[in-house]
């Protein structure tokens, strides 16, 4: 009877999800209520978690709760800490949820809401969650080893080295592109720039408090810090209203890029307790609060989605970024569906803290489902504004012009009616000078979030406060990724340099710290500057580059996972990781090829370089602009080379893996699994980590 009841309940959930999906896919009315998106997504997640993740856990991985996890065997109270599964879920989710699932879907909305939403949900269920879950499991069985170490042991030495290089490359591109998102969000906005700048002294204050006054008392310090941050969001309006102060905080894109580069260097070289860690605490609380508020806001307001399911830009002529729906929708969505970077977290802190193997399903698979839901919410927020406004905010000046009637008429000509006055009024309402040409996803997402929040609390009166709260929230946690990433990049550079000259590898040797910080900052800073001065809008070239590198890293993780499954004798179920891997290889290789060789200069790096070179040769570039144009040509060729090297690295790794798989399957080589030996757990079956608490 109980079983029958369960079947009926799950059938209802599945039918509800299918119905909501059908409504989203086939509705061709004026507009669609956002509730359909929430229902479709939640029902699909529930079914995927209940059925597919259970299948992966039971049949493919055969999770074993009688086996002691690293947190039990190696408990040291520092790295290896047995942690309650709900707390660890929060840890893991806070670590994997970055700006990607917010920015990617917002940019992909240029194709319409349908393709992005479908990939966010299906991609997460069948690829992203599986990757996170399987890699977490593999790392648990190997005492929390990293993806690089596992690639070296299970695939080949060269495979491990390639994985390490891929991580450094993706880190460089990632930091540049998220820096660019911040630049475009703060450009010519004294309110937003002041608010974000003030988070630095607030973080320093918190750092000193946590180090010298009340060591480690994170909660009380964070409460003080969040209160101060909310105060500076409001105070930003006073700065914007004061002509003299507004001038100080009104910065150009280039000035902001250099400020962010200087900040990245400082965060990497200064003691971690002073700036980086307290900012991270602030960011974690504000991120959690903003994401839950957005979910609640969408459920309360139930906004109408005004973007059509498919736009005319599926043909590759999109103004935000150029390229057809295949493969660029997948490359652009990236983290909301599958992120290679997650494999670093799933093989980093989380496996060292997990209580038992069965928790890997809830934490690995479940946290990624939640991240995908964040992506769906970002898609809803972006699509809830009139499409004309969306394209006005996200299109670069080279496509629509700088502002005004001509740009509005271009956008209206695409079939998305817009009046210049609408943009002027909207900018005035949100307290900005202009909202034209703010590519990068952050401002349009902030407008969408502000409209949802203000419909819940405060109405139009608070629209400007909510807009700047949303910008602060996005920029704050983007900068947290930027400073933490720069520091990790510094360690990687020191690790590489230390192989050639030992003192350089010492992480406390100050010259080494300064030089390695300068190297990593110079690497991403160069790409950031290049993006800021790019006339096509840097997002057009940098976001696809980031998407490609991120998805290539996911392919690396799935190659490692497939190899391990093969060695475990799970050949029958190998399609679970092999199919997503094959799909990622197809989309990344197609995107890489198009970004390098496509004849359209808005897509192909080399074609754009060729057009610019022809313009110089024909004397169509003014003499004072020739040097700048030559630099642009160099940058395009550099981007082509970086894309080519990334693709080549992955092809080498896949070739290595194929050779290895052939050797295993043909019994030419002994299949050696590098798992830690089985040790039976000493914990009772109902132990949930409560012994570490107070009840």
């Amino acid at each position, binding site marked *: 009877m109980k079983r029958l009841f369960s079947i009926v309940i799950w059938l209802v959930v599945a039918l509800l999800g299918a119905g909501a999906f059908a409504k989203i896919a086939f509705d061709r009315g004026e507009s669609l209520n956002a509730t359909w998106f929430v229902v479709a997504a939640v029902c699909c997640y529930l079914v995927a978690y209940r059925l597919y993740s259970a299948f992966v856990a039971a049949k493919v991985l055969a999770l074993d709760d009688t086996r002691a996890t690293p947190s039990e065997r190696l408990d040291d*109270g520092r790295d290896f800490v047995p942690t309650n599964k709900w707390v660890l879920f929060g840890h893991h989710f806070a670590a994997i949820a970055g700006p990607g699932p917010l920015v990617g879907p917002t940019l992909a909305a240029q194709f319409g809401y349908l393709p992005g939403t479908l990939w966010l949900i299906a991609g997460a269920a069948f690829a992203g969650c599986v990757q996170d879950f399987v890699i977490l499991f593999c790392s648990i069985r190997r005492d929390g080893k990293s993806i690089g170490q596992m690639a070296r042991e299970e695939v080949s030495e060269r495979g491990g080295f390639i994985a390490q290089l891929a991580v450094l490359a993706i880190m460089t591109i990632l930091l540049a592109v998220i820096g660019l998102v911040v630049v475009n969000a703060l450009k010519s906005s004294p309110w937003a720039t002041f608010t974000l700048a003030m988070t630095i002294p607030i973080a320093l204050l918190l750092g000193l408090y946590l180090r010298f006054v009340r060591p480690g008392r994170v909660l009380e310090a*964070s409460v003080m810090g969040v209160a101060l941050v909310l105060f500076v969001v409001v105070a930003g309006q006073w700065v914007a209203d004061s002509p003299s102060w507004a001038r100080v905080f009104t910065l150009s894109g280039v000035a902001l890029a250099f400020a962010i580069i200087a900040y990245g260097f400082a965060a990497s070289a200064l003691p971690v307790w002073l700036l980086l860690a307290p900012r991270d605490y602030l960011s974690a609380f504000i991120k959690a609060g903003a994401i839950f508020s957005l979910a609640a806001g969408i459920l309360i307001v139930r906004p109408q989605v005004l973007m059509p399911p498919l736009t005319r830009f599926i043909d590759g002529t999109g103004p935000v970024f150029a390229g057809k729906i295949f493969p660029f929708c997948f490359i652009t969505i990236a983290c909301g569906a599958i992120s290679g970077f997650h494999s*670093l977290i799933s093989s980093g*802190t989380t496996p060292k803290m997990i209580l038992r193997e069965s928790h890997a399903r809830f934490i690995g698979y479940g946290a990624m489902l939640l991240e995908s839901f964040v992506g769906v919410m970002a898609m809803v927020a972006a699509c809830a504004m009139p499409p004309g406004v969306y394209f006005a905010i996200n299109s670069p000046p080279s496509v629509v012009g700088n502002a005004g009637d001509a740009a509005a008429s271009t956008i209206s000509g695409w079939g998305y009616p817009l009046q210049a006055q609408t943009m002027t009024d909207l900018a005035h309402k949100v307290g900005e000078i202009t909202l034209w040409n703010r590519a990068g996803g952050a401002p349009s997402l902030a407008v969408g979030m502000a409209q949802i929040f203000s419909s819940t609390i405060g109405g139009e009166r608070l629209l400007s406060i909510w807009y700047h709260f949303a910008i602060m929230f996005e920029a704050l946690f983007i900068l947290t*990724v930027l400073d*933490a990433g720069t520091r990790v990049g510094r360690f990687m550079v020191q690790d590489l340099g230390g192989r050639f000259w030992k003192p350089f590898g010492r992480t406390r040797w100050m010259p080494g710290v300064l030089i390695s910080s300068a190297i990593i900052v110079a690497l991403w800073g160069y790409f950031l500057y290049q993006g800021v001065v790019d006339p096509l809008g840097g997002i057009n070239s940098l976001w696809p580059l980031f998407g490609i590198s991120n998805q290539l890293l996911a392919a690396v993780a799935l190659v490692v996972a497939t190899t391990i499954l093969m060695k475990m004798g799970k050949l029958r179920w190998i399609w679970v990781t092999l199919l997503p891997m094959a799909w990622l290889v197809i989309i990344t290789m197609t995107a890489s090829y198009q970004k390098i060789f496509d004849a359209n200069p808005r897509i192909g790096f080399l074609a754009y370089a060729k057009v610019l070179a022809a313009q110089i040769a024909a004397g169509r570039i003014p003499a004072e602009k020739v040097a700048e144009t030559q630099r642009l040509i160099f940058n395009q060729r550099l981007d082509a080379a970086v894309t080519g090297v990334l693709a080549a690295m992955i092809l080498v790794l896949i070739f290595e893996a194929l050779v290895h798989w052939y050797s295993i399957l043909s019994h030419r080589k002994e299949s050696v699994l590098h798992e830690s030996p089985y040790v039976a757990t000493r914990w009772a079956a109902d132990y949930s980590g409560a012994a570490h608490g107070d009840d």
Partner: protein
Amino acid sequence: MRHLSKTAARLFRRFWRGLREWCGDAAYETYLRSNGKQASPTCTLTPAEFYVEQLNRRYSKPNRCC
């Protein structure tokens, strides 16, 4: 009614403990209770030493994603 308030108090205690563990507020207490620490009780770090050492370890590897 009393049962309800007891349940609410228990849930709140659990939530509070989870929040403290999630944000790192309870890290030092966890360290003092850990098996590794109890195996070598002579070299206990002070709260300030533990805080700095823990941060240095945490921020030397990827811990924030895109």
